[in-house]
């Protein structure tokens, strides 16, 4: 596993603090995602994983610290401006627009792209044949796995994506489907999409990832290659409750 972050960091989160109203959720949190890497952010429920992604996306603005992509500061940018800088966010529970069809969900995502997206549409449908078959189906009536495919496809339309923030993609999916999703993430990564992956399912995330951070009550408590963390059963158990 090569550690590219020192030479070429794509995303640098530097000492951020984040609050939800009165409650302090993230404490002096720093992490780096190298270009082309898959970085896993693991930790127990409520550790602040989702909030970290929301802070990067500008949805829950930080109260302190800086977030940079390609050296440019993302501070005070609105989520739609951050999306235009190549960051795509796939939220927990996917949040596809249930009352819209598959096609309408994708058209909406393509809406913010500047170039003609017809070609990208064809690519997406070729990549996700299940979606092609279900173009006119309401997204809300699809299975969890299909909705996850749609959420990923939606994140790839519109402005070019080079950093994907994935929140719990395996949540609520059957093991077979989790493998499919892992394959898709790996495929995307081979096409130069950098991935920051938040997972409760630490084993799945660490098998995919190059590097890993462990988050505990809003603080980074461990940083290593994914293999090192996966191999250290004691640490896995201590931090993540995985036996």
């Amino acid at each position, binding site marked *: 596993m090569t550690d590219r972050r020192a030479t070429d960091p794509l995303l640098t989160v530097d000492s951020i603090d984040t609050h939800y109203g009165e409650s302090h959720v993230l404490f002096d949190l720093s992490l780096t995602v190298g270009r082309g890497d898959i970085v896993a952010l693991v930790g127990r429920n409520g550790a602040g994983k989702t909030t970290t992604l929301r802070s990067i*996306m500008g*949805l829950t603005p930080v109260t302190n610290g800086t977030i940079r992509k390609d050296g440019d500061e993302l501070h005070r940018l*609105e*989520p*739609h401006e951050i*999306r*235009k800088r190549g960051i795509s*966010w796939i*939220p927990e529970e996917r*949040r596809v*627009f*249930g*009352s*819209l069809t598959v096609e*309408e*969900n994708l*058209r*909406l*995502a393509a*809406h*913010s*792209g500047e170039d003609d997206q017809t070609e990208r549409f064809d690519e997406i449908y070729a990549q996700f044949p299940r979606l092609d078959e279900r173009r006119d189906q*309401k997204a*809300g009536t699809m299975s969890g796995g299909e909705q996850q495919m749609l959420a990923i496809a*939606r994140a790839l339309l*519109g*402005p070019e994506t080079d950093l994907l923030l994935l929140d719990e993609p395996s949540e609520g999916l059957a093991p077979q489907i989790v493998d499919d999703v892992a394959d898709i993430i790996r495929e995307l990564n081979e096409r130069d999409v950098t991935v920051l992956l938040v997972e409760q399912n630490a084993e799945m995330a660490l098998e995919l990832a190059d590097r890993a951070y462990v988050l505990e009550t809003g603080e980074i408590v461990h940083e290593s290659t994914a293999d090192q963390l996966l191999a250290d059963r004691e640490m896995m158990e201590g931090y993540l409750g995985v036996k």
Partner: protein
Amino acid sequence: MVETIVRTALLGIQYGMTLALIATGLTLIFGMLDVINFAHGALYMLGAYFGWVVASTLGSFWLALLLAPLFVGVVGVAIEVLSLRPLYDRNPLYHILLTFGFAIMIQGAVVELWGGQTKQIAEPASLAGTLTIGSFDYPMYRLFVLVVSTLLIGVIWLAVERSDLGILMRASAHDSEMVDALGIDVSKVFTGVFVFGAVLAGFAGVLLGVSRSVNPGMGFGIIIEAFVIVVIGGLGSFRGAIYTALLIGLVSSFGALVASTLTEIFLFVLMAGVLMVRPNGLFGATEAT
């Protein structure tokens, strides 16, 4: 007998369609912005007054119909951008107090500027008189209002159901944060919807400013009816607002035929009845996905 029924039905449909112009704006604003806009009736009233000013100074109903809604739209931009936008994240009570305040302020400003007495927008000469088919006749202007508002509602319906803009509106109503994260500036969509609602209300104000009267209290009268429609149709439901507006138009016109003093009571009885059977309104539950 048949003639009376046809006449009453036409009147009901016409009134229903103009109500739909007001109620669709109100329901879209609620569905997307989560704002209960008490100023909506005042914007309708402002449309009627602007229409009256343009028509009486420039002498053209058509210019009034074109310009007055645009003026109301400008007022809408000011209200949304300057006052509502900072309050979106707050408790809905703030929105109610704010828009209610605007309703009172606008009414006060109108009385200050143009006095409290009733006005009327002059009917355009080209639409004067009646259309006669055999022994049946019907006022031309009312027919015009019927056709124009029905066409307009039809176009809006198509746009909401079919166009990219409609997709954007429905998606924003469902999950505006997600839409923003997809790279779309939702605050612009919000402004657009608010202004669109304001323009429609202003348009309805000019249309009804000819057949009904123009007075400072007209906004508060119409907002009650519009809210009844939005509640019966299902809060935030676009289709529900249109169907219900039509229903309310017919109930009003036929109700007036039966017992003219009781029409308002009919509306509330209808609302209570619907809410007892379907607490989310006629279309509320189906569109809640």
